[in-house]
């Protein structure tokens, strides 16, 4: 029987959580410590995952849209790296252009113009209406 390795991945996560929880306080039955609840949860995750890994048949995962996945993840990563370094407007435009790369259309001049207009709108809403202290530009 083909195995579903996603179960094994979750079992490893559960085992890691169990291992780290061993360092928390156990307490007593009358004064349960901070270790008990995460230990119960992580043990349940490990047991169910291992059972399913061994006994459940493998189900075909949905196909990956690798380009969409990479462009969306990269777009957010760029936002994290740049927003405080260069300000909101250039970050929004760059993140949107990277995200746009997740599909096949390539009308970049039009999209960059659209992203510029959108970035100004986002800055106006979040800075003025919602008082978010985030500068439009910041020199590195």
């Amino acid at each position, binding site marked *: 029987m083909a195995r579903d390795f996603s179960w094994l991945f979750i079992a490893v996560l559960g085992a890691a959580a169990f291992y780290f929880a061993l360092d928390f306080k156990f307490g007593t039955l009358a004064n349960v410590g*901070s270790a008990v609840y995460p230990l119960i949860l992580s043990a349940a995750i490990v047991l169910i995952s291992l059972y399913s890994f061994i006994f459940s048949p493998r189900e075909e995962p949905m196909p990956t849209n690798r380009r969409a996945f990479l462009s969306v993840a990269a777009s957010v990563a760029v936002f994290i790296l740049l927003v405080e370094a260069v300000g909101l407007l250039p970050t929004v435009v760059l993140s949107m252009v990277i995200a746009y790369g997740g*599909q096949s259309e390539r009308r970049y001049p039009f999209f960059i113009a659209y992203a510029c207009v959108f970035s100004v709108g*986002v800055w106006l809403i979040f800075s003025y209406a919602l008082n978010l202290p985030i500068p439009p530009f910041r020199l590195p």
Partner: protein
Amino acid sequence: MEDFLIGLSTAMMTQNLLACLAGVFLGTAIGVIPGIGALAAISLLLPVTFAMDPTTGIVMLAGVYYGAEYGGSTASILLNLPGTPSNAITCLDGYPMAQKGEAGVALFMTTIASFVGGSIGILVLSALTPAIVKVGMAFGAVEYFAIIVFCFVAVATIGGSDPKKNFVMVALGALLGTVGLDIYDGAERYSFGSHNLIDGLSLVPVAMGLFGLSEIIMSIRDGEQRHMRHKISFKSMLPSAQQWKRSFWPMLRGAASGCFFGPLPGTGPSVATILAYANEKKLSRRPEEFGKGAIEGVAAPESANNAAVQTAFVPTLSLGIPGTPTMAIMIGALMIHGIVPGPMLMSNEPQLFWGLVASFWIGNVLLLVINIPLIGLWVSFLNVPYRLLYPAIIILICVGSYSLKNSTFDVLVMLVVGVAAYGLRRHGFLPAPLLIGFVLSPMLEENFRRAMIMGRGEVSYLFDSPISIVTWLLTLGMVLSVLYRHQLKRLAARSLGDTTKTENH
């Protein structure tokens, strides 16, 4: 009645009326976009409410919720693409109606059915919540512990998909809910020395990652083109006398289904709409018309959907226990605004509770008033290509997460959760149980530990009250029914295998 009038005066305040209008409008606009559901819409707009008064903020988010649920039906009817999961069933007859040239009638009936279902749901909410609050006053740690475990099991077993996968997702969510400083013994759990994790993970980035980012990655399609052919005039929207007659009882029966399933944990609007549709098909004198454009197939599920949306607030407001992921977000929103939902909410914050109930009704009237003239606008929304929408949505998610604490750490949490959720969804793991586990986890642990202190370490104390015993029996019943179904499936598969072998011989 006096309480309701207080609520009505709160709901009629200018800022609350505007918030309700904005919520309904934005919710419908976002709900119309296929693949972006109420949960993503609420997560996206939650940061916008931080600057508002708590009542105004919650009124707006509630408007977003039922606006998105309503808006989802537009894409179901016109494109055969459900905007929200609970609108999926509307595709079955709504889209064939549109193909027959009756798109306007289907959209109009959706609006009316949503209004009828929502109004009946609000009546049930107003009557049921005070009654449950009275019972809830008697709840202690033992009862809360039993009820939250019941919720976990219900979410894992009823919500479709593989119960084992759902159980694991609930437990993973609960584990994420333990991150941070323990209030009892001061231990830092899973914070790995990072000061960003000492307060635990925030709800908004987790919800946005689970439902926003992962959904966007899954929805990007190459060469996607949508061209709406439908021109909808007011005249073309009016149903005939026969269509009104055929829709009347289905709407009421749909509302009853919504009112029953709305408050139950793990079911919510999706289950209510499916059962309302199945029930109508069974009762109909023309079952063969279902799936080919029967108006009952639109009226009943849409009424059930909105009734369930309203009654889902019953356990949320009366006990502080969410039955659906959307309600989990609403609880998070209440807590962010410094309001603790539960039995004391009605007595401590009557203007908020009854203001919310009154605003629900006003919001349903607004849905009716703005959506009939704006159907053309929603149709034109569907013409905006997704390739232009999704980069903008990613930015709103990022800025929304960032705005929580003006920190990129929350955006990083959103990214990690979103990427993990995408991977898990590809393998059939649903994100909704994880979110419910995450939100309920602190409450479950706290009540467990309090119960053990009160019982002086006696485990039997957890089964010491009639309410907890009944709840544990219901939980056990659910687990046994899953095991029984699993066993039946195995036996059926084995007997099928035996039959195939005999035939081959």
